[in-house]
């Protein structure tokens, strides 16, 4: 009997806006691969090939990406995003036996999956510094005694990773709207749910959490040097450079760094550890990038310095821009949130030369113009704003 896996990738990930304005959280590239693809790889490495993906928000993008993988996954559509258990219910018609439920938008390693496969009716848990963002669980021995989804005040640090191995009988009883509620109800009914500690689990609640996830996943990359690399470029540590990418003279790249296909890295640019650069990206001469995610088709002009940032697809950053990684507070939905980044930039932003950004969120298609030096800190620039 083969174990099926259901990946829940229908959710939007509102707290990761502006990055999730145009794509679901599962498709955000981390270490140059969408989060969901890391999870599919973990499943395959754990021996599970029968994979169903529930799609919803921006489903076409997810399906397009999945159809480019080397083996097929089954797609199920969730018309309205009514919670994780409802998403699983959408796939119910295809589930006969036990099933492994995995969120498509946070990372799990294959070792943890191998552990959970062996024990039916179980969940993976971990400890987290901000437990109230997750399903907080209490454990006695290795049995879960309660699970509370996003409590206002968490009594402990143990949280569910949202990864469950559940028996077919349990699948048939699902009715609620979140998996945590379903599991909690099961516990009350007397079902024994075993808690298994996850080895490596990474979630991004807020956009800056992606930087940590990126650093972690970059440690797994295989070095590769395709493309045209100048003999005077200095490349150290695990670095993957995609085909068609040009690395000009004097460039210094210190791994772990991932650079996609058809990029241009200009003379004397410096790419520091923990950086992922997508495909068709241009980084002009003398620019330094540290611990950042630069998505497809972005253009970074010369003499910039960027650290701790996410730069969305198709952004253009003007010359001499300074983007500094700073800790502080940003107000999101009227609540000040502790944040730590240079800039989190949506897609298609155009910013003029000589700007300074520190701990800022810049929405999609924002245009920052003007000649004088501009400085933005600890703030949010909404989508489509024209800053003159």
């Amino acid at each position, binding site marked *: 009997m*083969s174990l099926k896996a259901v990946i829940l990738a229908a959710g939007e990930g509102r707290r990761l806006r502006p990055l999730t304005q145009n794509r679901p959280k599962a498709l955000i590239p981390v270490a140059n691969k969408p989060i969901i693809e890391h999870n599919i790889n973990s499943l395959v490495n754990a*021996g599970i*090939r029968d994979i169903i993906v529930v799609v919803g928000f921006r489903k*076409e993008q997810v*399906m397009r990406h999945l159809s480019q993988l080397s*083996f097929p996954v089954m797609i199920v559509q969730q018309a309205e995003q009514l919670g994780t258990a409802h998403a699983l219910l959408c796939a119910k018609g295809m589930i006969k036996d036990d099933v492994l439920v995995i969120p498509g938008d946070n990372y799990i390693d294959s070792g943890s999956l191998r552990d959970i496969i062996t024990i039916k009716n179980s969940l993976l848990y971990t400890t987290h510094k901000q437990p109230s963002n997750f399903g907080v669980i209490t454990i006695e021995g290795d049995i879960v005694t309660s699970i509370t989804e996003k409590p206002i005040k968490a009594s402990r640090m143990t949280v569910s990773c949202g990864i469950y191995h559940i028996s077919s009988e349990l699948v048939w009883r699902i009715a609620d709207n979140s998996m945590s509620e379903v599991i909690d109800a099961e516990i009350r009914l007397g079902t024994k749910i075993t808690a298994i500690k996850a080895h490596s689990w990474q979630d991004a609640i807020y956009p800056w959490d992606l930087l940590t996830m990126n650093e972690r996943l970059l440690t797994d990359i295989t070095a590769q040097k395709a493309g045209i690399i100048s003999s005077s470029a200095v490349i150290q540590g695990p670095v993957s450079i995609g085909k068609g990418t040009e690395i000009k003279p004097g460039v210094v790249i210190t791994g772990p760094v991932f650079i996609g296909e058809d990029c241009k890295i200009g003379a004397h640019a410096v790419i520091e550890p923990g950086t992922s650069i997508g495909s*068709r990206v241009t980084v002009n001469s003398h620019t330094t990038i540290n611990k950042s995610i630069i998505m497809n088709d972005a253009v970074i002009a010369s003499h910039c310095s960027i650290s701790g940032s996410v730069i969305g697809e198709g952004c253009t950053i003007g010359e001499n821009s300074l983007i500094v990684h700073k800790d502080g507070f940003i107000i999101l939905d009227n609540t000040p949130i502790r944040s730590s980044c240079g800039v989190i930039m949506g*897609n*298609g932003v155009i910013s003029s030369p000589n700007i300074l950004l520190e701990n800022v969120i810049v929405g999609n298609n924002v245009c920052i113009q003007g000649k004088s030096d501009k400085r933005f800190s600890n703030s949010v620039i909404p989508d489509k704003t024209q800053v003159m």
Partner: protein
Amino acid sequence: MCGIVGYVGFRNAAPILIQGLRRLEYRGYDSFGIATLAGNVCVHKKTGKVSHISDSAEILQGTLGIGHTRWATHGIPSDINAHPHLDCNEKIAVVHNGIIENYASLKRDLIERGHIFRSDTDTEVIAHLLEEVYDDDLLVAVQKTLPFLAGSYAILVLSEGENRLIAARNQSPLVLGIGDGEIFAASDITPILEYTSRVIYLDDGDVADIRPEIYTVYMENKPVQKEINEITWTPDAVMKGGFAHYMLKEMFEQPDVIHHAVHAVIDSTLPRSLKEAKTITVVACGSSYHAGMIFRYLLEPACGIPVRLELGSEYKYTPVPFSDVIIGVSQSGETADTLAAVKKGICNNVRTVAITNVLNSSITRSAHDTILMHAGPEISVASSKSFIAQLGVLMQIVNLLAGGTCSEVLSHGRYAIEQILLTDITKAVDLCVSADHLFYVGRGVFYPVMMEGALKMKEISYIHAEAYAAGELKHGPFALLSPETPVIAICLPGTAYEVMLGNLKEMKARGTPIIALGIADDIELLEIADVVIPVPPAHQWIQVLTCTVLLQMIAYHTANALGREIDMPRNLAKSVTVE
């Protein structure tokens, strides 16, 4: 991407292989071939699509065989280069999906040792390497050969005198299907699902010994246990990857397609005949004709080279061509009328350039030069991504002839299309669904964009849609306007903006519902139009691309709401190979 398939069992292998290759056609279809074992190795291979020409292949005897369908990205598809490939003695046959990176050096060594090569493919080295080590045990021979191969492969091998297949995988997909007294192998599960739902996914490094009743999978020459997966999907669901129609899937592939098409031509590969041309004629049919028309609107102001545009079917009634070069545009490369026009040009000593999606199609063999648009296989009868690819190639030609002034503009194409695919067009679709007639109007370069938009609507929704140059409306069609005939108009800032706005006001006065593609915050347009679909401000070339995609989306969603057979519209064929 290529597709491979294999069968060992009790039935005649050839029909199963051919049917399997048809299933795999979405992975490529420029040539195909099969080999079966009936005493000795019988091979049948051909250039072309397996669904068109396969009757002669199905007569091959034998209950064991392998097959391959190819989509060449480099190296020409020809009968000789089609798989399967044989060793010198024609006793071992191989099909292969992937790339053998070190084939050149292997081939040199093999030729030195006296092997005779028939094809230019990397795959043939595998057959000859096997021949060298073969000693009545194919499994051992394969295990000895694999360490010499660098690169990616999924291979299937058979040899005379042994009732078994050997399969091996490294970085290219390969699946086994376990039936009752028969076993299948294929690049993916689509050819297998008709016969069995029990499949095994091979992993990198696996070698499988496949006999009718029994199979063994080896990893590093040791047998390993493989899990059998029960698959409950339909082949159709696998091929469409969750999309309701191929057309929708292909529309969503357009961001990548435009990127590849633009990069398909560079200055050094641009045919000299184009660089030196003082006058150009474009010959095409259907959507390709519209692409040619857009080319004319872009090239003439940019380079001052006059462009004559001809319908393929009408070209034979015109006198001898007077241009320096003829460009024949055809997705399939088999369009009879376009092909005839290219041949007519050649007979009259005119240089010819083919722009097509299929390498070694008829047009590429006739024309002096060929530019491939790299859109990948297109299954939907109504073209979407191949039209965008044609625009990409033609825009790049204009750009190169104009000295590369628009290179940066073109690099924004990919992202612009990605963004436009997210546009909400529900309100426009609601208006179209209830209409019996639709008018599409535009000016300048947006006139052919509208012609293409109207063609898409006709093809897949069966709604009568006509495109007019906006200025022509008053010369007749205006009489047809009424509150029941919605008009779709492109009204973007530029030289035609003021007059276009005036045209729309006149239409509005007749009570005609107006769907306008315009700038989001255009207050005047918002007042006139019933629905405004926002087109992001950008260079005109980019707006040509984004408007094209928006019109595809309107046509698709209208047809979908009406429940039409979108991928196979009534009475239409993918390539028109008759006059």
